[in-house]
């Protein structure tokens, strides 16, 4: 059994490529669980971070520092009465949230958490991700239409128009990055060897290309890579309907947009889909521009010592979190009323510390590194999402369209053309 596991771990392919159904299944389960945990954590973190930006405390009652709040919310949503408007189109109303969730989760099939940590590696990986995530617009249109109500319909129309428009800019930025996989670049931007190599759409190969070229694509052909990344970073916020592009669910205008009529479990599916879509597009951004699972300073800080230092990061992170939790435990009010919470927080700290210690072990340490760096970069994007939400007012619909069509699209085209010219000529 153990031999089988280690033999697989040493095989250096993704389960999909190896045609190994069992491992593919295990990976799917792992990703599903991981995503669910991430969404729950994200829920708590968003409330906490946003609250602290807004000079308040956020959830504090359910569990120590509100740690159990998302779980309480999940339970509340699940046992809530499921309301379906009388005039709604029953079947479509039913399918819409399911479709949105399925598309949000399906994209994760090709997300490479590490050189071998992906369900499969498609040679159209990026195309697949963009395509499947563009399907979620169908679910949103269906939800808005099936509710048979004005606000959801306007929300759905806004949302679909927005997603279709920003997909184009997004696609151009992606193509620019894909183009970079084939251009090694010499001369002015010279890293090494000139020839035009093979381009690829595969997520894993894109990261490998960044590894081979010793440059994350965000820094490649400076500033072209940076501009392409910036276009993608803007378009991806619009694509996931988050602030400041959250018009489809603009609370002050359309009450809740396309999911106004949804409640309970169905609503929670939309919630789940929104957050997993955020993680999905962030994963694309990380893969294409930020070097995926590669650790930072891979070319500058080389050598055994640095490798060791960087491999200690995952454990250090968890130990730091544990330390924060311990400090929190010590600062808990010394009152019998808080005893359960204090014990809970101490237990949480212990779990974090345990994970940290497990991550210190050399075999685990080496294996987990890729996933750690990938997740850390994605987490950075998640923080950005929250930050935007706390800072920006909402765009108006015409302004949104103007930004999409008149700014991002031409700039994206220009970057694409310049990338090609720079790559071939220089």
């Amino acid at each position, binding site marked *: 059994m153990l031999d089988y596991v280690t033999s697989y771990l040493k095989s250096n392919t993704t389960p999909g490529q190896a045609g190994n159904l069992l491992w593919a299944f295990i990976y799917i389960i792992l990703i599903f669980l991981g995503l669910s945990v991430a969404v729950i954590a994200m829920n708590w973190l968003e409330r906490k971070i*946003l609250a602290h*930006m*807004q*000079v*308040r405390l956020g959830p504090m009652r359910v569990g120590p520092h509100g740690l159990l709040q998302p779980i309480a919310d999940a339970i509340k949503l699940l046992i809530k009465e499921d309301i379906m408007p009388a005039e709604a189109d029953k079947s479509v109303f039913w399918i819409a949230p399911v479709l949105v969730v399925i598309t949000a989760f399906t994209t994760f099939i090709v997300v490479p958490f590490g050189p071998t940590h992906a369900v499969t590696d498609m040679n159209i990986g990026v195309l697949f991700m963009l395509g499947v995530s563009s399907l979620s617009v169908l679910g949103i249109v269906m939800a808005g239409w099936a509710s048979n109500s*004005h*606000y959801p319909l*306007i929300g759905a*129309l*806004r949302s679909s128009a927005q997603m279709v428009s920003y997909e184009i800019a997004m696609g151009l930025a992606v193509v620019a990055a894909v183009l970079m996989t084939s251009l090694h670049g010499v001369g002015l931007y010279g890293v090494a060897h000139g020839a035009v190599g093979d381009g690829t759409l595969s997520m894993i190969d894109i990261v490998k290309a960044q590894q081979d070229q010793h440059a994350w694509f965000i820094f490649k052909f400076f500033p072209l890579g940076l501009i392409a990344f910036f276009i993608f970073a803007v378009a991806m916020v619009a694509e996931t309907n988050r*602030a*400041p592009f*959250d*018009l489809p669910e*603009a*609370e*002050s*205008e*359309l*009450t809740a947009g396309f999911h106004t009529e949804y409640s309970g479990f169905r609503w929670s599916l939309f919630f789940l889909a929104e957050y997993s879509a955020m993680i999905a597009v962030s994963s694309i951004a990380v893969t294409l521009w930020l070097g995926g699972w590669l650790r930072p300073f891979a070319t500058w800080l080389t050598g055994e010592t640095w490798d060791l230092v960087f491999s200690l990061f995952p454990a250090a992170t968890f130990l730091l979190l544990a330390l924060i939790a311990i400090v929190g435990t010590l600062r808990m009010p010394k009152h019998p009323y808080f005893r359960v919470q204090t014990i809970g927080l101490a237990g949480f700290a212990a779990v974090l510390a345990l994970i940290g210690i497990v991550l210190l072990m050399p075999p685990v340490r080496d294996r987990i590194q890729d996933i750690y760096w990938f997740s850390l970069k994605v987490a950075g994007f998640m923080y950005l999402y929250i930050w935007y*939400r*706390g*800072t*920006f*007012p*909402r*765009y*108006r*619909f*015409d*302004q949104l369209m103007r930004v999409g069509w008149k700014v991002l699209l031409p700039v994206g085209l220009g970057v694409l053309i310049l990338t090609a010219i720079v790559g071939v000529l220089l």
Partner: protein
Amino acid sequence: MTDPSTYISHLELGERDETFLDSNELIINMGPQHPATHGVLRVILKLDGEKVLGTECVIGYLHRGVEKIAENRTYAMFNPYVDRMDYVAAVSNGLGYCEAVEKVLNVEAPPRANYIRVILAELNRLASHMLWLGTHALDIGAITPLFYTFRDREEILKIFEKYCGARLTTHAFRIGGCLYETYDGFEKDVTKFLDFVTPKIDEYEELLTTNRIWVERTRNVGKISGKECIALGVTGPVLRASGVRWDLRKAQPYAAYSEFDFEIPIGQNGDTYDRYLVRMAEMRQSLHIIRQAVGKIPEGPIMAKVPKVIKPPVGEIYHSIEAPKGELGYFIVSDGSTQPYRVRVRPPSFVNLQALDMMVRGQLVADVIAVIGTLDIVLGEVDR
């Protein structure tokens, strides 16, 4: 008063306007339960996609018959009721009412009372503007300023509570002056608050004034010219943002306003952005006034000689003050008895709300929200 639930709008719903692609117009009911209508305002919107073809405000969901109640109460008994109209600026309401009755009675509040009145009224203006800023920004999608302004407004409410025991509907003034003497350390508290809040206003401006999205969302939105404002009777910051230098505190000084040095901020374009800037400047001016007043509150009585039973002579009077939202006027008809024959309130929100249709026609749904916010209406005052 029509029954709001059966009310049919005059939007010519059957008539077809020219729409893009000749699609059907969409009639949308915004409110009375809607997160951005600041209460129970119901706006019927006729839309061509996102474009507003026309609006119709349906009001009266919060109608409590305040003016009718006045006819069955003595002058002093009616005083607390006015606080319930514009409940975010209760002090100003009370000030206007007390001064109107004093005018009928022909008494004058003593200078010390006037100073206290000015300080509290200006604090109240600050509180009202802060609430406006928070909710307006929230409507446009910036959620953070709301919490900042509520934090700082809390300090004002604390001063109110210390002064008269109530936070929101204060009933701080009585006919003829003030009931309560300032508590020990009132001046210190107010000064401390001034020092606390001055940088905070910069903080709000830092978040919004140069924020690209904020500027794009508010500039050239809900434009209204000074002429149109005057034609519609629109007053307050909305009028001033359209470039008309009209402030009752300067034009017909009441209380102790003639003794202070302050400026009337005005705008040029009369758009939502200018109204924002004007209100921010007004907050600074209020601070300036309070700072002057708090240093030199004169000694003396706080109550003029007012008979126990208030029985004004027969006559009528119109007295108006500059409330945070505009000109707040009281028209009082006295028949010589202990109860007013008629009290008519000229609420600024009600009059300003008229401008909504003119301001949003041809703009987008999102602008309706912005304009409702920028008009700074309080439904308690609109419906009375």
